[in-house]
């Protein structure tokens, strides 16, 4: 029999481990990889990818039908929503403070604090808290959220190139984790991590979101950016060696394939089935490319990815 000697990569780098939660809250550890995803023959990656379930601080008005029917009335209140997310198997809750958006309610720090407290008291899972994606408002509500969650080590974001200082500083002073978001570019990603590190944000307190598109809408870029950053990290570049977070769900549910049942070709099949597979395929692509925390929405897609991760890791 020919002698088959499996080539092993001699990686010199290792992804930082980041612990989210604590202070009475459940803890989740992500990162720590010393090889590419799920390649147990080469090295053992200690922490399987985790699923964060998206929860909003206000009832979604533009959600697709399959999501609304799966969640029912739970989406009317962030606390109830978060509880239901626990039932659906969440490892973490990703609370989005969307009502702070100037065009979506323009609520302020007080409302943000109230929403965060609701979720904190409803569930004991670790939290990710994101602003509405408008710099000024992000700073305002994330500062309030940080205060409300003091001592419970939550992940806060997004820190973006032009707007990382305030959130970075808040994380630093309250002992939270900064989420560094950059648009699909390894150099920008690295640069932002350097800037946060220069501010004094410790290496065990950075999670990066290098961005992704949905299946059919840029998944190839999300897939490749994950692979590139992870390879750089394993190759020894400390400034890319942080856990990766991807918003697979949020990207997918904006797209037509997840929303449209009428006026689409027969070849698209049933909306419910299609939308769930769309989210599951997007999520499975990013975890195979290195994602550590995948943020998702539909309970059935979540169940599928949970089982996929278990099968991939044997855990």
């Amino acid at each position, binding site marked *: *029999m*020919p*002698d*088959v*000697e*499996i*080539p092993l990569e001699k990686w010199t780098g290792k992804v930082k481990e980041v612990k989210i939660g604590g202070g009475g809250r459940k803890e989740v550890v992500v990162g720590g990889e010393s090889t*590419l995803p*799920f*390649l*147990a*023959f080469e090295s053992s990656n200690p922490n399987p990818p985790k699923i964060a379930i998206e929860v909003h601080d206000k009832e979604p008005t533009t959600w697709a039908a399959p999501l609304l029917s799966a969640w029912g009335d739970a989406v009317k209140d962030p606390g109830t929503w978060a509880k239901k997310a626990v039932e659906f198997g969440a490892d973490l809750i990703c609370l989005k403070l969307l009502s702070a958006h100037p065009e979506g309610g323009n609520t302020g720090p007080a409302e943000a604090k109230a929403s965060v407290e609701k979720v904190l008291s409803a569930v004991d899972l670790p939290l990710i808290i994101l602003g509405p994606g408008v710099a000024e408002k992000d700073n305002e509500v994330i500062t309030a959220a940080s205060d409300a969650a003091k001592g419970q080590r939550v992940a806060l974001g997004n820190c973006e190139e032009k707007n990382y200082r305030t959130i970075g500083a808040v994380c630093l002073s309250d002992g939270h984790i900064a989420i560094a978001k950059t*648009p699909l570019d390894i150099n920008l990603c690295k640069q932002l991590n350097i800037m946060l590190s220069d501010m004094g944000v410790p290496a065990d307190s950075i999670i990066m979101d290098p961005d992704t598109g949905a*299946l*059919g*809408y*840029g*998944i*190839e870029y999300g*897939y*490749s950016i994950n*692979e*590139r950053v992870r*390879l750089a990290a394993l190759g020894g570049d400390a400034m890319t060696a942080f856990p990766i977070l991807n918003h697979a769900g949020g990207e997918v549910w*904006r797209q*037509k*394939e997840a*929303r*449209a049942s009428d*006026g689409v*070709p*027969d*070849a*698209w*099949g*049933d909306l419910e*089935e*299609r939308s*769930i*597979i*769309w989210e*599951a*395929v997007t999520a*499975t*692509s990013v975890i*195979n*490319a290195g994602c550590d925390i995948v943020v998702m929405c539909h309970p*059935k897609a979540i169940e*599928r*990815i949970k*089982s*996929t991760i278990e*099968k*991939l*890791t*044997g855990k």
Partner: protein
Amino acid sequence: MALTGIQIYKFLPKTNCKECGFPTCLAFAMKLAQAGAELSACPYVSDEGKAALAAASKPPIRLVTIGAGEKKIEVGNETVMFRHEKTFVHPTGLVVRIKDTSSADEVAKTVEAVKSYSVDRVGMTFGMDGFAIENASGDSATFVKCVEAVSSKSDLPLILMSSDASSMSAAVDRVKAAKPAIYAATKDNIDQMIELAKSSGCPLAVRSSDGLGELAELTEKAAGAGVDDLILDPGVRGFADSLVTLTQIRRLALAKRFEPLGYPVITFPGEGASSLDEEAVLAAQHIAKYGNIVVIDCFSPAAALALITLRLNLYTDPQKPIQMKPGTYQVGEPKETSPVCVTTNFSLTYFSIAGELESAGWPSWLVVCDTEGLSVLTAWSAGKFDAEKIAKTIKGENVAEKVNHKNVIIPGGVAVLRGELEEELPDWKIMVGPREAMAVGGYLKENWKS
């Protein structure tokens, strides 16, 4: 891994006779290394030298063809582990399995559903690529009948699945000309399967569940007997073992140039899954991580759409987005009164908005700016879709002459451009459309008065 001029030189006669058209053997070798000459130009290379050079210049993963004619499946010839390193080249073949234990009716239905399945994406049409017919009955006549039934209804490539060499031989006999793949040679039947592959000229799949060593032993045997078109089935079926094993095979082929495993790989996600959506997710993993032919058991349009889309995405060249020629396109048959819309020349962007205008029943003029294949927001961020560019395109395309109005709709994502555009195009009214193409029908209904 191409050879250097010096390495090639070792195999040449070193007599400098010049018959190849080069002054010296070394000069010829250098040219060969740059692919600027053909080895056959030298009449004096020994057979041994020829063989050695051919082996060294072989692609690390063989390109294998299943089927004949226009719809044939070509897989293999991949040169990278990661698509960003260069690109993945031969898209995964997606094949649907039919068992010969199904009723004639079921078979006919599946064949019809699969062969007529067709989806349009970014201006291209895709479908499923073939059928795998399994001799699940174990009976030779039933198998042959099923193969005939499928091949009489469809000209898509076939993979014939039986471990019984005489059943396989009978089936191959009926469809030989269509060059089906033979699945599979195992250690128990390999001699007969090799004979069959040789006599029919069909590609041969080789299966072993006893490790890559045994798989390599089988392929060496087949290759040694002159069967070069091989397909690997390492017998792994689950999420973890298939990811690991397929990664190892790709690494061995590329990094080690381990020839016995330098062939495309076939996978069966349905055997590692217990539901339709689980099969789809495992198939997606195989598309991303080193499966070349993926055999699907539960054919469903929704899952097929997702897999075809993933394949298209991951197999596009990362250096070159799929793009349109800039210019003015007609959606339907627009008239003088029809809307004028502006967009970018990223194919996905163009087809998103064109498709919505069409399905909402709005014949329109769609002015496509040259943004080097970038989407609306990406192009805007990169400074490739600004007021100046849009104005220049509208003027250059003589849009004003095509219509009897002066209204132009820009994507909602770049609403900020309105002010500047009003300055650049003073006699036009700039209308800001919705952000998402999906909403364009509703928007026009409300805002377009002609």
